């Protein structure tokens, strides 16, 4: 997550004054673009807000690692090219959620500077060596059209996160 795209709002002062932070939160939420993430800092997990924004298609996760402060994050669903088609069993999975799930169990590679078909070879070689339960995170230039059938053949799922026209992040893991 990019620090520049993180908008933080500490709602504890608002609540301690006896006010409801809902209106203020929603004002920021409505202005969020695809890259930005909203961080709500609170003393408890704001369940009603999480449920409401989830229904509206936001991705959300909570960090309760601190004993007194709860960080809750909200992000718009980014354009997930074909993720619903390709993740055959779990249609609701999104790139960010999955990415979070694999934190600490990710192997990251960048194939943008490789000549065809080396990106494909590199990805498949890495997948062969990937420990069970881990995922491969790939920086790529485009949707690897000729790799897709082979991933399906080998029982891998792939999720996309399109950064720009020339930059695509792929998350590949065993189905």
């Amino acid at each position, binding site marked *: 997550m990019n620090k520049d795209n993180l908008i933080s709002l500490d709602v504890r002062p608002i609540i301690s004054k006896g006010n409801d932070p809902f209106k203020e939160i929603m004002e920021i939420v409505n202005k969020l673009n695809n890259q930005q993430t909203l961080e709500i800092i609170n003393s408890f997990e704001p369940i009603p807000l999480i449920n409401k924004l989830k229904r509206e298609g936001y991705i959300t996760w909570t960090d309760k690692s601190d004993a007194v402060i709860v960080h809750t994050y909200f992000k718009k669903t980014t354009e997930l090219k074909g993720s*619903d088609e*390709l993740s055959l069993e779990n249609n609701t999975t999104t790139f960010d959620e999955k990415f979070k799930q694999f934190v600490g169990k990710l192997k990251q590679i960048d194939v943008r500077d490789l000549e065809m078909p080396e990106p494909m070879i590199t990805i498949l070689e*890495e997948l062969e060596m990937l420990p069970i339960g881990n995922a491969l995170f790939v920086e790529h230039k485009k949707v690897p*059209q000729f790799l*897709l059938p*082979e*991933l399906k*053949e080998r029982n891998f799922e792939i999720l996309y996160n399109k950064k720009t026209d020339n930059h695509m992040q792929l998350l590949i893991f065993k189905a």
Partner: protein
Amino acid sequence: MSDLKTNNAPHSSVVIPHFIFGGCSFLIVAILIILADTNILEAYFNSKIIAITHMAVLGWATMIVFGALYQLIPVVFETSLYSEKLAKITFWTSAVSVLYLTYSFWVSAFTTHLVYASVFMFISLFLFIINVILSYIKSEIKNISSKFIIASIFWLVITELVGTLIAFNFKFNFLSQIHLHYLKIHASLGTIGWFLSLIIGVGSTLIPMFLISHQLKKEKLVVSFVSINVGLLCLTLNWFIFSNSMLTIICWVVIVIGVISFMSFIYDSYKKRIRKKLDVGMQYTMLAMASIFMPILVSLILLLVFKIEYELLFRIATFYGFSIIFGFITTMILGQTYKTLPFIVWLEKYKNLVGKTKTPLPRELYSNKIAKIQFYFYVLSILSLGLGLILKNFIAIKIGSFSLLAVAILYNINVLKIIFHKVKIKDNE
């Protein structure tokens, strides 16, 4: 989003036959040039040159383009080809039509066979057009490369309409103007509208991919797209309706701006490339790019020099056609064959093994030595054929045509070597 399937790549049985037929056609073209003998230097458009031209642009260039495009549709449109069955039917009807059409020209059967041959050809090309358009409709990617491809398809329709019109006129004589006027329109739309647009569309995706260059100015392609199509549209209207020579020059300038804008895009890509050393496929490609300047220069001469004797005018016109079909299109296709065909075959034969064991690379499927020798013969052949045409030197033509035959033979050896490659598993080092 919903139609992004896991398997967009066409089956290799759709693609490969095009390369085989294309290779054979290239060989036939080389043989026909030798057989045409002194006809090549005749002062008017004779049936032998027209036969060779159609064999070259349809049997050789268009066939390979069809095959390559079927493979590239997943890359450029991010969707699968509309119908593989239709593509197979198109292949067979096109193959028969091209041979029939070339035969009709070769034996000067203008009032008998030509009409039927041109109708068959028309239908075959139309099947291809339908397949590509229906693929485009289901694609969600409407980027500049795919727009170029669709524009090129549009110009192919117009080209074949005019071509069929000319063929019918030989039999029924209904057009007011002489054939040469329509032949000029037919040839210009075919080379600039169909081939150049298509090569820009495909090249703007593939060339940066092969050179590995990032962050390119896509705006240059937009300028190129607008200029070429507006210029060509005006030029076509002008030829059919106004016949204003000043307008012709303006259109020429607009089209040339478009071509140069594309060249500038490719030059950026070349400058920013990560992979510094060019392999043989990219050497051809870059040679093709540089050779675009030749037809630009020659067409300028044809436009500006008014008082020129007919004999010389026709010779320059022949050279103009030669510089596009051989200097540009053939060079491009020879190069891109070495980039795409090995990959297609490699993918087919090694996809299940990749990652699990050490596999050869696509470039190891052909003989680099043969490809290199072929390249030198090719440069020799276009230089001597070009000079021969301009200087009316028959010895240069002979040297050029036999070198071209050598190129065709070497090319076919490598193409067959790639297609009939036997799976090899390397020992793990």
